[in-house]
């Protein structure tokens, strides 16, 4: 572990505010991706009461879609992200109606089924794409220098896309009939059913949108890091922490939790080490699950 932070930066005490600005920008950018992942995860749990362990693998499918479409076939990057997201979304609908449909409300068996899907998808990708880490040429390069902090353009693109997706998702929830139905099911599935909300339609839709969000995140992040079969494990972990922080099933909670975790991790990882930051993430989860299981904004479980 490196020393506490004042001693860490012997050379540039003047740069302290510079460093904080950089930490803030790093944290925001990472936080936005966490929000994208957590949103899909919490929507699926909120509507179907299933902890979607396969969420990381949906992210991976988005990544490999970018590898094929943008990397190999040379499509336009932005078109690739949209196609990848909707492709994974459709795949999610398929997964729900074929496999997960039988587990609604059965939390533990549902979780184990999600695990089974995760294992299968990851192994399948490993067979088709091989074990090595692959990269795609960078669609966006260059850096925006804000003086105090430096933000790579590709991170800005990811941030921009995420904001667009969040806005679209918020609009869908607030102003469309299905969005209203989905919020109702999240609050109280029995009551919603009584009001004529057909779960047979809302559940696949919810899982589809959740998958779309995860696929989109994967597609966006593919060029920034490398693409490999177990690339979904770490984002899955982060989605876990964020959703519990914000409150399982709470959509605003996922947004708040995502940004909060992004900033907290960025600060501790820069000041101390990534392992310390990860530990703090898990410690937060343990504390919250014990003292406030419904998280910061969640409704009573």
């Amino acid at each position, binding site marked *: *572990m490196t020393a506490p932070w004042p001693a860490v930066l012997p050379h540039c005490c003047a740069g302290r505010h510079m460093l904080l600005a950089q930490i803030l920008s790093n944290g925001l950018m990472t936080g936005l991706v966490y929000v994208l992942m957590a949103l899909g995860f919490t929507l699926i749990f909120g509507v179907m*009461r299933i*902890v979607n362990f396969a969420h990381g693998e949906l992210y991976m499918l988005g990544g490999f879609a970018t590898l094929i479409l943008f990397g190999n076939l040379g499509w336009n990057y932005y078109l690739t992200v949209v196609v990848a997201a909707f492709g994974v979304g459709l795949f999610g609908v398929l997964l729900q109606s074929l*496999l997960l449909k*039988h*587990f609604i*409300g*059965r*939390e*533990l*068996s549902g*979780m*184990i*089924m999600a*695990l*089974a*899907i*995760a*294992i*299968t*998808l*990851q*192994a*399948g990708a*490993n*067979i088709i794409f091989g*074990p090595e880490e692959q990269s795609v040429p960078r669609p966006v390069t260059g850096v925006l220098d804000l003086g105090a902090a430096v933000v790579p353009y590709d991170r800005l693109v990811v941030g921009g896309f995420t904001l667009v997706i969040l806005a679209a998702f918020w609009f869908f929830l607030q102003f469309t009939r299905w969005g209203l139905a989905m919020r109702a099911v999240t609050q109280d599935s029995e009551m919603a059913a009584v009001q004529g909300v057909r779960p047979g339609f809302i559940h696949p839709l919810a899982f589809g949108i959740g998958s779309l969000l995860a696929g989109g995140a994967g597609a966006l992040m593919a060029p920034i890091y490398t693409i490999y079969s177990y690339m979904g494990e770490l984002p899955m*972990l982060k989605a*876990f*922490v964020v959703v*519990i922080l914000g409150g*399982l099933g709470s959509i605003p909670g996922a947004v708040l939790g995502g940004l909060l975790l992004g900033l907290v991790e960025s600060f501790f990882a820069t000041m101390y080490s990534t*392992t310390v930051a*990860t*530990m703090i993430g*898990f*410690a937060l*989860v*343990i504390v919250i*699950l*014990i003292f406030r*299981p419904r998280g910061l904004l969640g409704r009573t*479980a």
Partner: protein
Amino acid sequence: MRLAAAVLILVGLAAWPFIYDQPFYVHMGVMMGLWVALALSMNLMLRIGQLSFAHGAFMGLGAYASALATMRLGIPFPIAFLSGGLAAASVAALVGPIFLRIRGVYFALLTFAFGEVVVLTFVEWVEVFGGNNGLFGIPKPSLFGLQMTSRPAFYLFALTFAVLSFIAVRAIYNSQFGAVITSIDDNEMLTRSIGIDAPRYRLAAFCFSAALAGWSGAFYAHYLTFISPEAFGFWTPVNMVVINVLGGIASPWGPVVGALLLVPLPEILRDAKEYQVLSYGILLMIFLLFLPDGLVGLARRWRGRWRAARSAEGRSAAGLEQGKREKRAAA
């Protein structure tokens, strides 16, 4: 008559490594023994309706405790081995009272986070746990000065360990303690209303289950002679659950059958490396969808023991939720 048959099978199981001395299959036998014990420890958790992802960490605690006791404190193997289980159980006793208040999916997520923190401690605290490199040169088990190096001897140790674990868990289920924890999972409110201190029983089950995982860890450490943190991560409890689901949760035979089926799978498919994991996933899906009671549940139904099957089904994977629904309805 049944006892005679059991003894015969046991003798057969014990003798074959000496007759048909194929080292690699003996290695398989040892790993099967290990995973039977691990799967049984998870079966206990599923029996109290609380799937735990911390059992990889408990296995690790047992492994490191026993390894460090023998390597650095010079404690003789038998005591070190026992201390492995006790170390895991005492940590379980420490966190149990708080964790066990939380139920179902939240408990799974909580134990997941706890497991990751424990593994991160193994990685970060390099002076004690050896960091990512783990510990090397863990002495082989030695009983009264006789060091166990030959593989068949290890196989015997594994066999006894697995059989003892099975007997212990089965005894628990058939005893009054078993009746209590089944009642708690079946209908906790009613069980408490007639005098059972449910949290304490659940804690006792959690500690024993952790101890069993700890002993398995100690066994694993002294068998492989080295351990590293990632062996105790998230995938170990996942495998325990897979074995239980495939074998059947309702009876202690489930983990045994599941382990005997699943442990050799990676080695049988050794040449098709990636297909091992794929087969794991697909098998799990098939069983969850079509055979929720696992192989043992299936066998029972074929043998027409309807009553046992029906009462067992009450606690099967499918039934895992019925208990919940009932509790919710009654609450």
